[in-house]
């Protein structure tokens, strides 16, 4: 694969390769079209959230997965129902693929009382008990040990489920990344850890985060499979993910799958990303994963301009509906703030409030 490391500026005239280079059995057109729709839905949803944020209709930090859609969608698409996913803050696409609806997410983004976290938690920190989606927390790295535990539990319980989790390039520097992957390798857990290398960790470029050539170089040090794919190429991502899932399900242990892409917006919406060189933005703009897939599908006769326009309109409608619905929902009242800390608690254990 050929990806642009953040260290070296792209050579002018660099061309964008065709999608799915080197993939023997690419997914069929309906699959690709389905993924494209999920990617468009994610993009449309987040663009809308950004707009709402600018209008002060959404408050707090707004993180988007713009540029990451091929990764979040194409890694989630091949999962079996019994697989368990632990997505991160740029993985809205994975949420949609795995069953969360725009309404679910919009209620959460707007912190409504009826949202999964009832306004207690923010952004993509959602995942219902009993579902196969586990809600992330902010502390980077922390979900990888949890994913290892999930994988352990699936094997323990005899399901054929694989645990799939995500981590940013920056998050690979955390101790938890290491402890969890090492254990996963030792125990040959059915786990896939997707590294979303979008060149930046907040303002920190790859070269200040790690000194290996590719983050998948770490796999050998754990004794697990490792691979790096072009994260703007949904076919490559999908293909690698299928192999990783097969490996996990077949008892071959975990995989470290690096997907190289670009964070096309600021770290969050407050961030003007002045620190990103304009050439870098331009380089990756030419590799927008949605555009690439769209062109590919068009070339294959799988999605013409009309269908694409309709797809976009469908996404917009779904997002419109979510906004209208969620904005009409009541906010939490307040006292819920004190509730639900424990699954079992008796009132006599709580001190009376003074003031």
């Amino acid at each position, binding site marked *: 694969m050929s990806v642009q490391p953040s260290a070296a500026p792209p050579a002018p005239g660099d061309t964008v390769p065709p999608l799915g280079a080197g993939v023997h059995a690419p997914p069929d057109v309906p699959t690709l079209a389905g993924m494209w729709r999920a990617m468009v839905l994610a993009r449309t949803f987040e663009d809308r959230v950004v707009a709402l944020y600018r209008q002060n209709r959404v408050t707090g930090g707004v993180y988007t997965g713009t540029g990451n859609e091929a990764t979040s969608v194409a890694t989630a698409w091949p999962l079996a129902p019994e697989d368990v996913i632990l997505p991160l803050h740029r993985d809205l696409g994975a949420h949609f693929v795995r069953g969360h609806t725009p309404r679910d997410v919009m209620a959460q983004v707007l912190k409504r009382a009826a949202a999964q976290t009832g306004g207690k938690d923010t952004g993509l920190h959602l995942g219902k008990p009993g579902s196969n989606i586990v809600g992330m927390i902010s502390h980077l790295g922390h979900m990888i040990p949890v994913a290892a535990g999930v994988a352990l539990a699936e094997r323990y319980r005899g399901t054929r489920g694989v645990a799939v989790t995500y981590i940013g390039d920056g998050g690979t520097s955390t101790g938890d990344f290491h402890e969890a992957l090492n254990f996963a390798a030792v125990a040959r857990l059915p786990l896939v850890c997707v590294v979303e290398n979008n060149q930046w960790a907040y303002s920190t470029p790859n070269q200040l985060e790690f000194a290996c050539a590719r983050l998948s170089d770490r796999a050998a040090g754990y004794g697990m499979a490792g691979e790096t794919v072009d994260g703007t190429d949904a076919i490559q991502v999908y293909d690698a993910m299928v192999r990783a899932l097969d490996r996990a399900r077949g008892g071959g242990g975990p995989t470290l799958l690096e997907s190289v892409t670009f964070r096309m917006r600021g770290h969050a919406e407050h961030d003007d990303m002045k620190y990103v060189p304009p050439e870098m933005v331009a380089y990756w703009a030419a590799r927008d994963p949605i555009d690439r897939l769209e062109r590919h599908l068009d070339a294959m006769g799988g999605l013409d301009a009309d269908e694409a326009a309709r797809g976009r309109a469908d996404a917009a409608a779904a997002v419109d509906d979510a906004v209208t619905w969620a904005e009409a929902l009541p906010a939490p009242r307040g006292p819920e703030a004190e509730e639900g800390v424990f*699954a079992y608690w008796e009132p006599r254990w709580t001190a009376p409030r003074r003031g």
Partner: protein
Amino acid sequence: MTGEPVTYVEAIRLALQDEMRRDERVFCLGEDIGQYGGAFKVTKGFLDEFGARRVVDTPISESLIVGAAIGAAIRGLRPVAEMQFADFVTCGFSQLVVNAATFHYRLGQSVPLVVRLPSGGGVGGGPYHSRNPEAWFAQSPGVKVLAPATAADAFGLMKAAIRDPDPVVYLEQKFLYRREKGTLPLGPDGDHVVPIGSAAVRRDGTQATVLSYANGVGMALEAAARAAAEDGLSVEVVDLRSLVPLDRETVIASARKTGRVLIVHEATLTAGFGAELAALVADECFEWLDAPVWRVAAPDAPTPAEKNLEDHFRPNAAKVLGALRALCAY
């Protein structure tokens, strides 16, 4: 009441083993817990009985241990994680207080896990093998904190911890492992569960109350007995057993009854759990108090290794007795 007295550490082992026998979802994970049976042999024989599936040896990765326990718990299992020493829970601290502790609050996701913490001093462990970490967790909403002082409670609270739907840190005292013995009050089904959130009055008294838990209880009982024998003082001793949740009613009732409260713990003084107890008494028992609320605790220092140093450092019955006498004379 059946059977021979067992040691505190044996009681832990028996409870864990019995829960594993009763409930297929219960499993253990930690360092050296398999063939070796753990640093303190709590899981001795478990590998043979339950196999490597349910007795999971891990690398030296405390954050992984706690994090994996979370993952297993939210997928319907009942993990019991062992820290080799309570001290090393600092390496898994974040997973516990940030991750395990918040799942239910934000998502309604129950996280039924137990983290076993071989805690405390009195065994010459020095600065890195003597920690009493309870106050860190008490200041971390979402974590329950248990600290048994007797073999029967070690048994009954371990069972309660495993069956509880929330993250529980279970402080087991290395000092008591082999020193403390008791009969297990097993029911006909071989079971005995001590409810979380209930204190035990270990000794009735009228003139002063000692609030304590874990290693402090033995000191308190010895001091109370001597105060009775040597000074004719009637001292009540309350063993909290469960710090979070706290049996506020029992504490308040005893403090109001006696009007004099001494708090005893082995952990260091400042911002130790005794501070919370003092605050509770100062709030709820003001009109009943005949004396200031005092705490006997370790000085604010790491735990020294050498015996003279640790003897000076640790609370003991003599120090408790001295404080009791002064308090009763107040």
